[in-house]
């Protein structure tokens, strides 16, 4: 059993640790409305969560994480600043035989604080670092805010920027879009044909030729997108240097101070990342002030891009270098955008993370 006494005790110990640091313990329901999670994560969450049905409440999911319900609870009327901790089971269906458990404990710590994001980031990281220090783990960090600001500041059409932003968390699609928008790959033949027909017959002619138009997506929407395609084809490609800035952010892997120096150089070429780079500098200072050894801290420009998509700033993970077969024992980050979605426009700066106590127990035993 993964919920052995040792794991339970470790979960209780970690929660007590966060409580001692000033967090309020909270609980959430195990059965969560599926609609919220589906709306956030899309169809992919169905493969990862246990979906069940309630005769009155409709589709429900066994809690796949705590962050969403805790953030919802806070948005519904928590006072600020707020710090919460929780310990309980989450449920994740495994599509592959990875040997990973499908139900396991998570202990988390979440901070909702408008005042000083750099200090809040540093505070969360320092606490996790302290809680995990006996386990011989190494931290990896990143900052999705830098990549996002680099995209927002591109000198190109709003549609292209929106498409890239939408796929920040899908590295393959992001790369394919960037290659096309910057003219590094030719227009696909299928797209060229659409544009040729559009030039010849016009949107209405093209649609009429293939009538009827069944279903909800009507002729107006089709014509609207054809116009988007035409504008896109007419727009100049994203410049080589600008696309290169994105590449260099994505490929950046260095110690935090070295990464900061290189990002500052990049900010000279791409001033839009200036504020995000300044936030990173402030965070590193706040971390150093809390006694974190930042000189050896790993930083990667693409860290956090493949997790469930809600981090949009500082991201971190702790893993055991001696056990590359195990997932990280802890992960976390900043998720201001998630609170904006859950709060229907009313956002609260938020940062937090989770520890998987069953992995902490394995590593604590010397990795057996």
């Amino acid at each position: 059993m993964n919920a052995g006494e040792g794991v339970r005790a470790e979960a209780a110990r970690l929660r007590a640790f966060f409580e001692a640091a000033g967090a309020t313990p909270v609980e959430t329901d195990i059965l969560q409305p599926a609609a919220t999670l589906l709306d956030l994560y899309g169809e992919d969450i169905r493969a990862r969560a246990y979906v069940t049905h309630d005769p009155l409440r409709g589709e429900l999911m066994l809690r796949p994480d705590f962050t969403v319900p805790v953030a919802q609870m806070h948005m519904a009327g928590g006072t600020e600043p707020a710090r919460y901790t929780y310990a309980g089971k989450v449920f994740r269906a495994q599509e592959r035989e990875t040997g990973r458990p499908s139900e396991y404990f998570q202990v988390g710590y979440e901070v909702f604080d408008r005042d000083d994001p750099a200090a809040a980031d540093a505070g969360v990281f320092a606490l996790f670092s302290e809680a995990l220090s006996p386990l011989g783990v190494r931290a990896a960090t990143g900052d999705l805010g830098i990549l996002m600001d680099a995209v927002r500041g591109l000198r190109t059409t709003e549609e292209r920027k929106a498409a890239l932003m939408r796929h920040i968390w899908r590295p393959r699609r992001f790369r394919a879009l960037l290659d096309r928008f910057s003219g590094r790959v030719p227009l696909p033949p299928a797209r060229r044909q659409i544009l040729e027909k559009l030039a010849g017959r016009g949107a209405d002619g093209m649609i009429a030729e293939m009538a009827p138009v069944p279903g909800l997506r009507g002729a107006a929407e089709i014509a609207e997108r054809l116009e988007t395609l035409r504008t896109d084809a007419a727009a100049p490609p994203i410049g080589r240097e600008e696309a290169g800035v994105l590449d260099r952010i994505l490929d950046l892997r260095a110690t935090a101070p070295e990464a900061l120096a290189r990002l500052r150089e990049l900010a000279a070429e791409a001033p839009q990342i200036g504020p995000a780079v300044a936030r990173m500098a402030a965070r590193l200072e706040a971390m150093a002030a809390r006694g974190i050894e930042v000189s050896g801290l790993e930083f990667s420009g693409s860290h956090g891009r493949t997790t469930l998509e809600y981090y949009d700033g500082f991201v971190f993970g702790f893993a055991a270098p001696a056990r590359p077969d195990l997932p990280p024992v802890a992960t976390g980050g900043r998720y201001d955008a998630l609170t904006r979605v859950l709060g229907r426009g009313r956002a609260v700066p938020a940062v937090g993370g989770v520890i998987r106590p069953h992995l902490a127990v394995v590593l604590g035993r010397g990795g057996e």
Partner: protein
Amino acid sequence: MALKLGVPSKGRLMEATFGWFGARGVTLRRTGSAREYAGAAEGVDGLELVLLSAGEIPRELAAGRVHLGVTGTDLIRETLAAWETRVEALAPMGFGRADLVIAVPRAWVDVETLDDLDAVAAQFRRTHGFRLRIATKYHRLAREFLRAHGVADYQLVDSRGATEGAVKNGTAEAVADITSTGETLRANHLKVLVDGLVHRSEATLLKSRRAEWGDAENAALKALLCRLGVTSE
């Protein structure tokens, strides 16, 4: 113990399976009345025929209740998570061919590729306030394919039969469905995306990795495969 071979219990799939084995010197036939679903195998000692509904065969193989089975690779991949760890494909049989494809209304003249579908999904969500619906009964295959190709902002809606009609009936905007000739799709004003082939399925002889494989079963399997001219890993 006998070497149990699970075969579809009726229809074209059963007849084609009987034909395929028969051409290789193994006679499979139904016994008793037409409603009895009993069968017999001749030509290899220790081989026992089990007639099952085609949809049950993946599960029976995964549970190890039959040693061998004949079914479409689409059903295997759809029904069994991590299918490679549970069954081994021994031989494609050359019939029951069908493609699982992503299809959209022909009138969507702005959509030819998955890349277009993804962009339209974003537009659709913005316009209608919910995710573009794709009707299918192949949830796992469709979802894995769309995820691998970075398509977002869609939802799968369950459709059991007459999936091609879902768009016309207003219950979906697109479909992930099986087609062999594309005829039904065309009749329903749908077209297949140029890169929308999810899986190419055909009837396949499969071996269960979970069944009890004793000396008797292994000997019978060896004799059977030798007769069929099939090599196992």
